[in-house]
């Protein structure tokens, strides 16, 4: 008997249409990569063809002009510290909100939910003053703190929803065995939270790595800046030799794109676990 899941002729047509659509979607990315190897004349005359003459020097120059190793490291420090910080603080708080629904806890939880809707950008002026008063201008800690405590609302929201679906029996038996709250959390609950932790870790990584707003605001010297600031600094510098900017764009997206290509299964299933359960 033919089941609902067998491959039909209509699926073949569907498949062909989707492949055409996917090819269309890849065109901008293909164009971005192929243009990095071309002279501007070649790119204007034959935008979609392979280069008449492959040129690789563009990458060498972009690498040097952007001070790439330095800004890459800055990006990495900011992303890793922000993601680790937000995951630790958010899962601790979410655990408390899920398992102790006291009036105080519920009030704090609703207060924290404001952060899911109102973007912190609306408070840019006082935030900037706060950061300068704390002496954190041009210090990566400024971006890290702002990342952690503006992402925390959404993180707590997703993690708490997930904890609500985790049965309490294991924790209860651990507590009967004399295990304290902290011990129960780190030994019993946290391992069960790994699927949702993976989800928010990936979402947070994408957001903080690609963040341009906070670095633009708080990091002013080139020594402390991130990759995207270097890309931004160079836009419009090459009006005649316009293809020289393309390797910089590629260097701007390459780290996350590589991360995605190598970890794609993990990333896609990770993103969906938390969102759909939540």
């Amino acid at each position, binding site marked *: 008997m033919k089941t*609902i*899941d067998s491959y039909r002729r209509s*699926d073949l047509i*569907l498949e062909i249409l*989707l*492949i055409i659509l*996917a090819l269309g*979607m890849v065109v*901008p*990315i293909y164009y971005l990569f192929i243009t990095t190897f071309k002279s*501007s004349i070649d*790119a204007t005359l034959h*935008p979609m063809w392979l280069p008449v003459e492959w040129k690789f020097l563009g990458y060498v120059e972009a690498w040097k002009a952007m001070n790439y190793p330095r800004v890459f490291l800055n990006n990495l420090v900011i992303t890793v510290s922000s993601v680790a910080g937000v995951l*630790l603080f*958010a899962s601790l*708080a979410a*655990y*408390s909100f899920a398992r*102790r629904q006291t009036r105080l806890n519920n009030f*704090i939880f609703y*207060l*924290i939910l404001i*952060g*899911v*809707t*109102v*973007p*912190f*950008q*609306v*408070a*840019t*002026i*006082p*935030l900037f003053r*706060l950061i300068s008063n704390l002496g954190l201008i041009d210090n990566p800690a400024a971006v890290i703190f*702002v990342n*952690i*405590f*503006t992402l*925390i*609302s959404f993180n*707590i929201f997703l993690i708490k929803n997930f904890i609500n679906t985790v049965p309490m029996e294991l924790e209860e038996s651990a507590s009967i065995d004399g295990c*304290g*709250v902290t011990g129960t959390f780190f030994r019993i609950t946290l391992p069960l939270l790994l699927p949702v932790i993976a989800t928010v870790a990936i979402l947070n990584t994408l957001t903080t790595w*690609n963040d*341009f707003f906070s670095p633009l605001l708080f990091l002013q010297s080139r020594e402390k800046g991130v990759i*995207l600031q270097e890309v931004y600094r160079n*836009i419009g510098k090459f009006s005649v030799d*316009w293809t020289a900017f393309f390797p910089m*764009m590629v260097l701007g*997206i390459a780290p*996350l*794109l590589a991360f*995605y290509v190598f970890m*794609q299964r993990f990333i*896609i299933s990770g*993103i*969906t676990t938390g969102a*759909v359960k939540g």
Partner: protein
Amino acid sequence: MKTTGWNLKRNVTFQLFVLPALIGYLIFYIYPLVQTFIYSFTNYSLYHLDMEWIGIDNYTRLFKDDSVIIGIKNTVIYALLITLLQNGLAIPLAIALNRPLKSRNGLRLVFFAPAVLSPLVVGFLWSYLMSSTDYGLINQALRAIGLNDVNWLGNPKLALYSILLTQVWQWTGYAMVIYLANLQGISKDYYEAASIDGAKAWTVFRQITLPLLLPSISFNTVMGMIGGLKVFDVIFAMTGGGPGHSTETIVMTLINKGITESQFGYGSSFAVVFSLLIMIVAFIQLKVLKKWEERLF
């Protein structure tokens, strides 16, 4: 006696768990937000560093300021359209990819890929693609098939929609992946039963797929709206708000008034209005979706 001490210790520990998140959140988020609210009733600016109370003057001025009204209008149009288009395209795409296609994993990889790119770089890239100079790829393609050039980013009537197009390209795959996961969690039995009953494809969609997709529809539309209302990077990269004010959105206006022009008090009143707007929109959306959920089940 021992149990009370034990319970007290447990309760204190639970409360301590909230503390790091709460303290940081109060300092770096709530405190600036409250200050914004306070500033909004003052004439605080670079010329009035000793701020004075001016009541609701900023607010009355706000609703007469054309650039502010344009900013709100652009943002609302943008957020509504991005949410509609992104979800309207992502749902059929996810249903198609839920078929047992041979290239399913590869297609999913490609459709999601733009979501990992930085919106700033995506903005720069598309401004090359949409450029009106002789290297603009899209206009070259239009010329090749005998059509006229389109001034994608230079025409004030069109620029916002051109930007919208790039963001549909970037985010539809993301929404699709979430729908796809939701679809894969729906039991096949529903569909088997419907097919035995001889139900039409549209009926199956309306009666089975759509109601069961509601959790991800709520997630995607609320996130799409909020993301749309605070759009910044891509517009900053593509037009900087121009030509004129035609693509200026709320966050951009906010930065212009509050930081570039240093009108801290006035900019803050705009920030307050925007915060209320975004909270109302999210609230209404959740209510409507909840109603919808009740009606469909």
